[in-house]
């Protein structure tokens, strides 16, 4: 009997006009999103390669180490292959950071900065389609699952037979869910084939693991809305009421909670503005620079050779002192900036964590955070990448200062020596492991499981007591 109910649910759904419409729309949107995602990734990969090569060429063409230290090296953010599925905050954050002796590095030149119109519409990636479009379809498939049968009189007719209610609702759940998955699975399989066929896309074992976990998250997310639809349908006596209630919940989950959480977090945990931090850094820099001039003059006055003394020895002593002094000043500046930055980042992280945790009540946020983590396009990966650049900064600065001071002509103050990059320390970044990313998604996956359990139990119990009249 369960098999008959499941079969009926599937056949009834797939022969309905809403299924045909849903399937076509899903197929077009999913394939389009994967195609554009792959095209964007390919372009970004090309751009990344060009940017790295150009940086090397620029560095090599610098006339001196002083110029190189001032110009700095550019660290480009490598594109993530799974950004074609979930672009996360990839397009909003900068793609390149300049590391030089003077300023704290920051990622700039985001896609939105280059073309602000992108920020208006956002990315049409698979995660977005699942979050918005497919969740709406899940509601569309379930809002009348129980109440619609009541209105059509088929529920009374079915229950006038020897049909246990628990079996009927179970059949509806299984059959309905399988019907909902068809418009998702077929285009997804086609998308996977497309990914495999693309020469620019190379997915290693870990990337496949991440992709499969993302699909699991998609299925869980849809299950939340599917069971919610059943629950509301089993709690209402009119399908129009059920639809309105579900629409209200959907809007709350998908748009209201995430946005309100960010606003609430900003109110509850305010942070200083970036300008304020920059002003503090600049003030300290000026203070150091003012003091440095005096210090150098004082040193020269105190250590200047008396007439007849060895000028060369003085120059060598001055060079050594200046190099050490320069390094100590840079260290002081770096230390101050790092402290300011640490404080700012800690406050920012606290605000972000609060916003994330508040918004996690919504399955839409849970989907967003988990897919971003799995695609390595989330806040954490961005933070780790920026941190790796900031860790690299003093290493680069130390190298550049040393080179600069060793190649300065102390008599003329001119920079000399050909720039050689062989011993220049390179920036390295270890992307987050799959295990760590998965662990990060566990609260979101757990939340979705809890919601599914609550909604399913609610639907189940409500249906057992449902007034079929």
């Amino acid at each position: 009997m369960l098999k008959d109910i499941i079969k009926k649910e599937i056949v009834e759904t797939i022969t309905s006009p809403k299924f045909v419409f849903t399937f076509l729309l899903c197929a077009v949107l999913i394939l389009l999103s994967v195609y554009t995602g792959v095209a964007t990734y390919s372009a970004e990969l090309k751009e990344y390669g060009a940017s790295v090569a150009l940086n090397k060429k620029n560095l090599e063409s610098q006339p001196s180490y002083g110029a190189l230290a001032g110009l700095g090296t550019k660290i480009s953010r490598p594109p993530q292959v799974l950004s074609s599925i979930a672009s996360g905050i990839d397009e909003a954050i900068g793609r390149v950071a300049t590391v030089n002796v003077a300023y704290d590095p920051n990622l700039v030149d985001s896609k939105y900065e280059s073309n602000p119109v992108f920020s208006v519409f956002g990315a049409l990636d698979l995660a977005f389609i699942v979050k918005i479009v497919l969740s709406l379809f899940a509601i569309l498939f379930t809002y009348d699952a129980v109440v619609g049968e009541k209105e059509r009189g088929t529920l009374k007719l079915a229950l006038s037979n020897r049909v246990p209610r628990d079996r009927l609702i179970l059949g509806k759940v299984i059959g309905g869910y399988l019907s909902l998955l068809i418009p998702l699975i077929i285009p997804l399989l086609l998308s996977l084939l497309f990914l495999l066929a693309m020469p620019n896309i190379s997915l290693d074992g870990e990337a496949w693991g991440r992709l499969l976990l993302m699909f699991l998250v998609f299925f869980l997310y849809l299950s939340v809305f599917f069971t919610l639809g059943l629950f509301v349908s089993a709690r209402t006596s009119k399908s129009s009421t059920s639809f309105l209630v579900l629409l209200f919940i959907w809007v709350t989950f998908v748009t209201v909670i995430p946005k309100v959480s960010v606003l609430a977090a900003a109110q509850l945990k305010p942070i200083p503005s970036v300008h304020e931090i920059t002003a503090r850094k600049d003030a300290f820099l000026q203070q150091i620079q003012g003091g440095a001039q005096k210090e150098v003059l004082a040193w020269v006055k105190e250590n200047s050779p008396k007439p007849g003394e060895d000028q060369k020895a003085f120059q060598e002593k001055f060079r050594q002192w200046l190099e050490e002094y320069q390094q100590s000043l840079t260290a002081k500046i770096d230390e101050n900036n790092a402290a300011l930055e640490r404080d700012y980042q800690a406050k920012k992280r606290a605000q972000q964590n609060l916003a994330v945790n508040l918004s996690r009540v919504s399955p839409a946020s849970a989907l967003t955070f988990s897919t971003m983590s799995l695609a390595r396009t989330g806040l954490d990966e961005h933070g780790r990448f920026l941190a790796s650049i900031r860790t690299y900064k003093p290493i680069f600065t130390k190298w550049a200062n040393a080179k600069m001071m060793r190649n300065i002509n102390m008599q003329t103050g001119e920079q000399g020596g050909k720039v050689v990059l062989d011993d220049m320390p390179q920036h390295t970044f270890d992307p987050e492991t799959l295990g760590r990313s998965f662990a990060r998604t566990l609260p979101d996956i757990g939340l979705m499981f809890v919601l599914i359990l609550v909604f399913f139990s609610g639907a189940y119990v409500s249906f057992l007591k449902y007034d079929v009249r």
Partner: protein
Amino acid sequence: MIETINLTKRYEDGRLALDRLSLKVEPGEIFCMFGANGAGKTTTINLLLNFIPPTEGTALIEGIDVTREPLRSKDYVAFVSENVMLYGNFSAYQNLDYFSKLAGKRGLTKVDYAGVLRSVGLQDDSFEARARTYSKGMRQKLGLAIAFIKDAPNILLDEPTSGLDPKSGQEFLALLTAMRDKGKSIFMSTHDIFRAKLIADRVGFMKQGRLVMLKTRRELEGEDLTELYIQYMDER
């Protein structure tokens, strides 16, 4: 056999929907229950199908207490409801196939389904058409086919002739008569005095949850059922 013993239903809001109804519909009998909207006719059917629990009393189908053994009792009863829409995307065959399987009928073929569909007066060219394209009369006939294919000894009908055109109504009554002749116990709630008078073996009038009149076909001979109905509804 369909039987109720002091069957009473009082809703949560305190409204008494059915007041100590005691009734027996014997095999080979058509019982027509009349009454205004809210008189308790549909409540009786809902209680007999265990869709709602009784406040007091017992409802029996084939001697089985529907409250104690709801699933078993449903093996012995078929139900035709008012204005059932069925599954609009399904054909007559598909609707019949699904509900016959729910009724526990296995191994039936399209030939069996076609035979039942013909027996309720549906045309062959409508068997494959989607139910959403059916007229109300055709849907009622399909609903009756679903009840017939179950082949239960008892049939409950809730306003089955409402909205049917005269020809469909006539055909419908002929089918019920045929069922009665096969020995089924038929309980029908209706407002349709004219049609019911043609086939009823007994009629009952309900008012505010109480059975206020019960007459056999013989007792009704020479009586104007409409007058009687109005009289009972007004006076008591």
